[in-house]
């Protein structure tokens, strides 16, 4: 147990401080090369450096390599490789805008290391009711999980700090759940993800100094997805990101097809004091943000706080579910 505590402290510290120290350097580097995009929710023509995914993946890889040195198991190796592949898909999309189907299909291929390393268990565990063995169906679940979590985190990356803050809360909830279930090695890997997101949040929060880009959102989402699979906590992981799933569900149920987010009409508009309000255009999709501001316009910061409150609720529900895993009716 002492070794695991030491590993948890070292891995968390590497994940946090590497990003905390490297991100300002990356911001200057991107600004110097004019790799910036307009922040559409700001009054003035504010340009923000992108992609911050480079910083996120460096922190994640450094911490996961150290974790692998402590525990050389195939599950940690799978997390490491899938993180790199998820980042690679994102950086391609950051450099060149790809079609709506590119990310889901490319992310499905990112699940290959999990299958090749055999870092999964084909039993699907449910709280209160036990588990069900679905050997063939589980392979499909593995292939679908990475695109779902990757795109889910990516689709919620619409306001300053939401993607990183959201992943921080969800990852801490998932790490606590993994500790409750005594899956310590994967819990430490999840802690690395949580501290990575937390360190990046410092620069991504309102007003953002850097955007994660698709590479940042996809590396966070893909890593979260692979942790869910190798940690055998698929249901708990889904519960912890319910607000983002709600966002994707609302979007898909109103658009009724998979499209690149840049192709759709913006469901929000601005008031004179630059608060966000729901548009009157009925052809625009209903999203989580639109649902939050349907009643009255809110500032960007207020909306972020509302999303974080919803994520905290789903995180608490995930932890309750982890406790319920030990109870069978």
């Amino acid at each position, binding site marked *: 147990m002492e070794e695991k505590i030491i590993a948890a402290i070292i891995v968390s510290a590497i994940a946090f401080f590497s990003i905390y120290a490297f991100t300002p350097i990356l911001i200057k580097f991107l600004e110097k090369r004019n790799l910036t995009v307009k922040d559409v929710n700001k009054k003035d023509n504010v340009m923000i450096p992108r992609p911050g995914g480079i910083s996120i993946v460096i922190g994640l890889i450094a911490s996961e390599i150290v974790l692998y040195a402590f525990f050389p198991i195939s599950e940690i190796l799978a997390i490491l490789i899938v993180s790199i592949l998820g980042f690679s898909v994102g950086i391609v999309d950051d450099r060149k805008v790809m079609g709506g189907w590119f990310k889901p299909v490319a992310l499905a291929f990112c699940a290959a290391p999990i299958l090749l390393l055999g870092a999964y268990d084909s039993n699907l565990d*449910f*709280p*209160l*009711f*036990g*588990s*069900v063995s679905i050997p063939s*169906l589980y392979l499909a679940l593995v292939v679908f999980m990475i695109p779902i979590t990757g795109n889910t985190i990516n689709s919620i990356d619409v306001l300053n700090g939401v993607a990183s803050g959201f992943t921080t809360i969800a990852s801490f909830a998932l790490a606590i759940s993994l500790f409750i279930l005594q899956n310590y090695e994967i819990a430490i890997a999840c802690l690395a993800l949580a501290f990575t997101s937390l360190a990046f949040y410092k620069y991504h929060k309102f007003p953002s100094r850097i955007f994660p880009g698709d590479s940042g959102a996809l590396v966070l989402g893909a890593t979260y997805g692979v942790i869910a699979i190798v940690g055998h906590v698929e*249901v708990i992981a*889904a*519960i912890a990101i*319910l*607000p983002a*799933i*709600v966002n994707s*569900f*609302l979007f898909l*149920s109103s658009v009724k097809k998979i499209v690149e987010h840049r192709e759709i009409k913006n469901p929000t508009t601005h008031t004179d004091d630059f608060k966000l309000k*729901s548009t009157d255009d009925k052809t625009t999709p*209903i999203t989580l943000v639109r*649902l*939050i501001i*349907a*009643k009255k316009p809110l500032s960007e910061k207020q909306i972020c706080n*509302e999303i974080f*409150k*919803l994520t905290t*609720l*789903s995180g608490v*529900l995930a932890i309750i*579910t982890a406790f319920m895993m030990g109870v069978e*009716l």
Partner: protein
Amino acid sequence: MAAQIYGFIFAMWILMLIGGGLMIYFVAPISFPSNIDPIITSGTKVFLALLLIFIWVYTLTKIKNWIFRSQIKS
């Protein structure tokens, strides 16, 4: 923010728990006599699982529409 959105998250959680229970207690144990091809048994299970997902999505869509309408009205 209206409590309905928190309610929506809570409803999703409950539906996930109930869905898991239905899968394990009713769908997974389904078996037909040995003279029936196992592929038919698997196909039936997949059909029932998809039916559960359809009911899940339909219920959530109805809740979503109700929340959005009530948010706009108030």
